[in-house]
């Protein structure tokens, strides 16, 4: 099967700085990929290239199209919410729905109204009358009502309260996602999405620091918690990262036999957040 996104040597320059530095990646259909990186790592630059919002060097194909040339036709099958909600402030909800329906062949008014019925948003509201959270709700309702092959979410729940964030990811998974669809998502709230992700991409200084499926992560990485007296022995096994918590030493290992680690203390699968911190620290050194 052809991949949804395939990049080879994808590069984005701003003047002399390389925001995206020769990235290779392939994202097949039916995945939920978390693109995670610190601020300024090049996440948004990479997403902009994928969405046809910026020029780039290298090869990039999204759904078999060149995004910088065919943005309009690509958008028939791709949806995105960029950064925070950026809906025009002057528009009324019904006008927004009307316009989207007329322009987007894959938009279902019915589905959109269904999502909106769970909110306090009415058709006559102007976007500028809505709170930040409601604008985000409206944008998500619009996007989820579009039958797209690729959904790109860049910090989709920024500014939303925790109740709605939970609800959003639940409905994304239950109502929206299926094997035909691919979701590419960036967020700083890694804990909230780690249970829905199928794949991880860590990006640092414009380069990919880690690209793995969640199964690979589980089999490759081990978190070990030991008492201080075993710390030296654990260190000898060359951990990626070490931290201390309540007098215990916690180590993160990449590709070290579980049995050997289990002899020293408790072993767990690391959380994405811990794995992220460890990967970034390793990249810095």
């Amino acid at each position, binding site marked *: 099967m052809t991949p949804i996104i395939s990049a080879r040597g994808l590069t984005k320059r701003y003047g002399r700085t390389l925001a995206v530095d020769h990235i290779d990646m392939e994202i097949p259909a039916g995945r939920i990929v978390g693109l995670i990186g610190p601020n300024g790592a090049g996440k948004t630059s990479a997403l902009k290239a994928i969405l046809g*919002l910026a020029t780039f060097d290298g090869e990039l194909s999204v759904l078999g199209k060149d995004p910088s040339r065919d943005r309009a036709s690509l958008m028939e099958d791709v949806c995105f919410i960029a950064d925070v909600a950026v809906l025009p402030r002057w528009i009324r909800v019904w006008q927004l729905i009307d316009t989207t329906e*007329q322009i987007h062949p894959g938009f279902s008014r019915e589905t959109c109204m269904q999502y909106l019925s769970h909110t306090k948003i009415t058709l006559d509201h102007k976007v500028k009358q809505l709170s930040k959270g409601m604008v985000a709700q409206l944008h998500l309702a619009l996007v989820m009502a579009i039958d797209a092959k690729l959904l790109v979410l860049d910090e989709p729940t920024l500014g939303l309260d925790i109740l709605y964030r939970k609800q959003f990811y639940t409905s994304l998974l239950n109502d929206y996602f299926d094997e035909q669809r691919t979701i590419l998502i960036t967020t700083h709230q890694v804990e909230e999405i780690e249970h829905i992700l199928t794949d991880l991409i860590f990006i640092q200084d414009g380069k990919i620091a880690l690209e793995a499926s969640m199964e690979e992560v589980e089999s490759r990485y081990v978190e070990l918690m030991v008492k201080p007296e075993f710390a030296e022995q654990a260190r000898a096994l060359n951990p990626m990262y070490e931290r201390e918590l309540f007098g215990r030493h916690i180590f993160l290992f990449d590709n070290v036999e579980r049995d050997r680690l289990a002899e020293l203390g408790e072993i767990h699968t690391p959380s994405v957040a811990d794995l992220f911190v460890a990967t970034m620290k390793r990249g810095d050194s």
Partner: protein
Amino acid sequence: MKRLIALIRREYWENKGALRTTPLVIGGIYIAFLLMSIFTTAHFDNEMYTFKEAVRLLASQSPEFRATHGYEVMLGSSLFFTVVLAFVVFFYLLGALYDDRKDRSILFWKSLPASDTLTIASKLLTAMIVAPFIFWAVFVLTQIVMAGIASIMVLSVGENPWTLFLSVVNPLKAWAMLLASYLASSIWFLPIYGWLLLVSAFAPRIPLLFALLPPVIFAILQIWIKFLKTFTVNNNLFGLVGDWVANSPAILTAEIRDGEGMLALGATLNHDFDHAVTLTNILDRLFSLQMLAGLGVAAVFLTGALWLRHRATES
């Protein structure tokens, strides 16, 4: 086509104030002035004596006289609509590719499957067709209301408005001429519209400044260099734009001909074209070499605007 219409509707919704409210306010002002003048007359005029005399004097004129002058008055009263329309279109185009960059809603619009070409086309067509058409329609409506009020006044002094002016003046001809002049002007001013869209797509802030400053500086340099070389000051960008307005197919001024005031296309400052308000003269401008050159300039500006729009989401 469906997408283009949706985009044009979106332009109308966003600019309802400028495109719909403005002409309605002007129409309201026209009607208010008419009513005020009626009340003033009624207040000072003893039993409407002077008004009656004026109506009788008008009735004694030949139907041809009433027809020509009625037609001229109808067309001439469009001037204020036309001037305000020009301002509305000017500022609309300056904001057209700037506002959504400023509030970042361009990221939403670019998430829809509408090409940049289609987006720019929707904005250009709003300026060229939608805005003039709404102004024209409100103008027609205003004249119908004013004709109604005038008829009541004429009836109230015992004259018949039908024979006096309603059956004599052909409003359709005046209205059609105005609409033709509006649409022809939209084409004529394409190079300027193209420039405004280019600036709108380019300006990092204050598009008005970017629209006016470069041509002004350019023209001043031209004047200065020309002056140094030849001690004359003709042929510069100011003159070119001035001539362009003077040659335009918009009904902007009147001229004196054979001792009588006549409406004129553009301004009778030069005689590149015949300035009499006729359909032939309007078409003459559209099929001229100037127009061809203007379209070439417009094409360059619009291509630039499209190029910039394509890259507008680069940070």
